[in-house]
């Protein structure tokens, strides 16, 4: 069994209204050091495949097809082996 964690974020060029709102909120709480906030999605997928490579390849396909929208989002996949 493999567990894939997919992180999806807006592309740098896309305005992230949620991130902006949280950025302002953090500033108003006094966190002066905050420079930027981006809010994305965290998706966990468990797969029953033989190899890590296979898991990664499948996940990439899933991202391109459904999980992310290439027009506005970038994604990052991390795969690790887990107990079945």
């Amino acid at each position: 069994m493999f567990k894939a964690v997919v992180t999806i974020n807006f592309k740098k060029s896309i305005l992230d209204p949620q991130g902006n709102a949280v950025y302002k909120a953090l500033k108003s709480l006094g966190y002066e050091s905050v420079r930027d906030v981006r809010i994305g999605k965290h998706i966990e997928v468990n797969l029953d495949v033989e190899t890590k490579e296979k898991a990664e390849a499948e996940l990439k396909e899933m991202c391109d097809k459904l999980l992310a929208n290439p027009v506005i989002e970038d994604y990052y996949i991390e795969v690790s082996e887990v107990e079945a």
Partner: protein
Amino acid sequence: MRFGVVVFPGSNCDADCYHVVDQVMGHPVTYLWHGDKDLKNVDCIILPGGFSYGDYLRTGAIARFSPIMDKVVEFGEKGGFILGICNGFQILTETGLLPGALIRNPSLRFICKDSYLRVEQNETPFTGKYQSKQVIKVPIAHGEGSYVADKETLEKMEKAGQIVFRYSTSQGEITQEANPNGSARNIAGIINEKGNILGMMPHPERCAEAILGGEDGKLLFESLINWWQGGKA
């Protein structure tokens, strides 16, 4: 002209679109179930507003994989008329039939109100009955209606006259204040290059009867039917 309104799980303007075609326009209309693959020989497909699949993951992302959508894409590519309203517009961008994407309103709030639109392009089957630059009042109701696309795409659409509606003031000025959702270049509705697929965030079906406060949306349906009848003649 025969219309088909696609019903996805979570569609909620399907009955409204059906009502307008049937009761206001007096044309035949049928529902198309998301799980079917039969377009029932319709001439125009409406992808209605709502929250298909609860808007989960991304608006329109899951709906585009419904069995019927393969047929809808095929239909559109062959030149069939498709009108995507609100969630329908979001689905059309997810399928790639229309460029760009729709993201959350900068206010992070759902907005339901009348909006003014300027008709930027009246040489389409959907807008022939509007005057060029006519200002119309059409309600919006969405949380994720901010249109985005890269600069190249926007330029290309501008040149090709694909931008059909822009949010404007009641006087027809395109200003930031008139833009309710931060859409790029105040874009409220766009059409594909071939001119047979229109996507728009505002709801023309909500202003097709005087009793509901306006009839500006009715002209869109009239335009389409007029084009269709002219084409047949």
